[in-house]
């Protein structure tokens, strides 16, 4: 396998950054997320980022169009992101799978979300295989291979002192080629390091099917009790795609339409004009979140909308853990 020494990571990143925008997981002000690469940034590949790379394609807030207000001859002016190429470096299997979930939502079923598509189309994803599992990680339980993901354009493997790299797509091959041209690659026959057994494991097999008959199950009467509807889980989740469309007036005549992350945990999310809310209490909101991830999404798109990244488990202030929910569903008596 082609490989480069870990000691030369900065040179590798510099080489890639010289070709276009390069996003790397880094620590800035103690926040571990993806940032555009700079020589002075503290790149951190030790563990997965606290904030997933979803915000690169689907920012928490983005302007979608300008408008001139009604009353005068109003008009609309589209605001699209630049169609520039970028490379995402170090994306883990869980987050790669999450990007495929987002692709399903934003790029299929009759309509394309142009904002997501514009960013996504220009991106080359260089995935990074995990050699150890975090305490909250359970991707292997959700059917993923922590070491590699076939959806990536190129795959990095942990070879100990080296990172092995393989191109998977034309875009990925270009990354490998750029590193080869820069003289950074050599051949390595070292073994790929793989994680030891995951601390956190759950049996997700058949959960989507079982949940079909569990909408009215008494399980939901208890699960919601500790939830405080803070929405942290949905914001940190790499697959949560719900958004609100709102607007901001610049002055009496003009304004801007804004798309921003929304959460099924919030009351306004499904509240209709006139006050009717089909999911009025915490019970319905919590049920919606887990049913969406484990039942509705699989029914619609053929895959779980949970990739086992563990962020919601790590950050939930009341320890309402999806792995625990999966276990409870598994143990639940249907018709109970």
């Amino acid at each position, binding site marked *: 396998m082609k490989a480069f020494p870990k000691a030369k990571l900065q040179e590798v990143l510099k080489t890639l950054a010289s070709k276009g925008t390069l996003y790397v997981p880094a620590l800035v002000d103690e926040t571990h997320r993806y940032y555009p690469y700079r020589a002075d940034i503290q790149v951190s590949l030790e563990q997965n980022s606290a904030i997933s790379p979803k915000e690169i394609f689907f920012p928490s807030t983005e302007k979608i169009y300008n408008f001139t207000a009604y009353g005068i001859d109003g008009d*609309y002016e589209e605001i699209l992101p630049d169609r520039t190429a970028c490379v995402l470096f170090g994306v883990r299997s869980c987050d790669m799978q999450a990007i495929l979930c987002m692709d399903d939502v934003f790029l299929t079923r009759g309509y394309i979300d142009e904002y997501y598509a514009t960013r996504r189309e220009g991106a080359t994803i260089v995935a990074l295989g995990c050699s150890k599992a975090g305490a909250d990680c359970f991707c292997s339980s959700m059917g993923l291979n922590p070491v590699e993901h076939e959806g990536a354009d190129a795959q990095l493997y942990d070879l100990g002192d080296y990172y092995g790299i393989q191109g998977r797509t034309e875009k990925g091959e270009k990354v490998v080629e750029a590193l080869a041209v820069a003289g950074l690659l050599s051949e390595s026959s070292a073994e790929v390091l793989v994680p030891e057994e995951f601390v956190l494991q759950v049996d997700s097999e058949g959960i989507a099917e079982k949940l079909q008959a569990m*909408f009215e199950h008494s399980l939901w009467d208890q699960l919601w009790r500790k939830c405080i509807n803070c929405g942290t889980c949905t914001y940190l989740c790499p697959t949560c795609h719900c958004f609100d469309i709102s607007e901001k007036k610049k002055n009496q005549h003009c304004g801007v339409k804004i798309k921003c992350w929304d959460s099924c945990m919030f009351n306004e999310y499904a509240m209709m004009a006139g006050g009717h809310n089909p999911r009025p209490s915490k019970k319905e909101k919590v049920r919606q979140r887990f049913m969406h991830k484990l039942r509705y999404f699989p029914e619609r798109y053929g895959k779980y909308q949970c990739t086992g990244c563990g962020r919601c488990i790590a950050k939930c202030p009341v320890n309402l853990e999806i792995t625990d929910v999966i276990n409870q569903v598994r143990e639940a008596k249907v018709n109970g």
Partner: protein
Amino acid sequence: MVKDNATPENLAKATTEEIKRINPLIPMKAKVTKIIEETPDVKTFYISKEENGQMVVPFHTAPGQLAMLSLPGVGEAMFSATDAPDHLQLSIKKVGTLTDELHEIVPGQTVGIRGPYGNGFPMDQIKGKNVLFIAGGIGLAPVRTAVRYCVDHRDDFAKLHLVYGSRSPADLVFQYDLFETWPAVRDFQVSVTVDRGDDNWKGNVGFVPAFLEELKPNPDNTVCIICGPPIMIKFTLGILDKLGFTAENVITTLEMRMKCGIGKCGRCNIGSCYICLDGPVFTLAEMKKMPNEY
């Protein structure tokens, strides 16, 4: 009856080939050309777009389909849209921030509109059958899209019967259709009721379910299209069942909060169906398979 939208096979049919490469979130600039005051809290807006100096329909909608109407600076919401040759008709009840503001505008006003959205009524599959329309209040707006289709294609359908009710005579929407246009159509029985009459009201007084039970429409070879307030729907469905209408032959529309209209923003789901995309039209049989969360 209607295609079972929730099945993975049907959902998988929506392949990339059908994908439209336009920015679906940007509204089309349109103009309100006429406003009809239907009732004290319902107005019908005629909306056209200007094209080469002429006012034309912004886009065509099939019966039961939806359109997203926006007032820049105020908001955007989804409404049932009635297709007409050179305009769309949106009948809107005053219930919130946007609709309050809409009720203040005058003809000539610029608005934004995008669509069409949703599946619409399965008119092709109803062909040759009797159609029983049941509506309450503003629920006549979506039902009217199907009524107009049947009237325009009168020979494609057998007998037509509309049962409509509102709170009071003043709250009856589309009175010009109820009392003029539709009674003149061949084999079209129009039955109107109000919860409370007034001095001039000579028609039936009573709730829709009770009125329907009295009218005893025959379920043979008949499809029922019903829209209205949840309480009316609930009791009317009981009567329809008693009269012998099967769940496959009862069609209704569901309402959820919507933002994007294109199945991305998440909030309008009922189970794995997105109402903006897979709905708003469902048979009662389909609804029975969905979670009861609307």
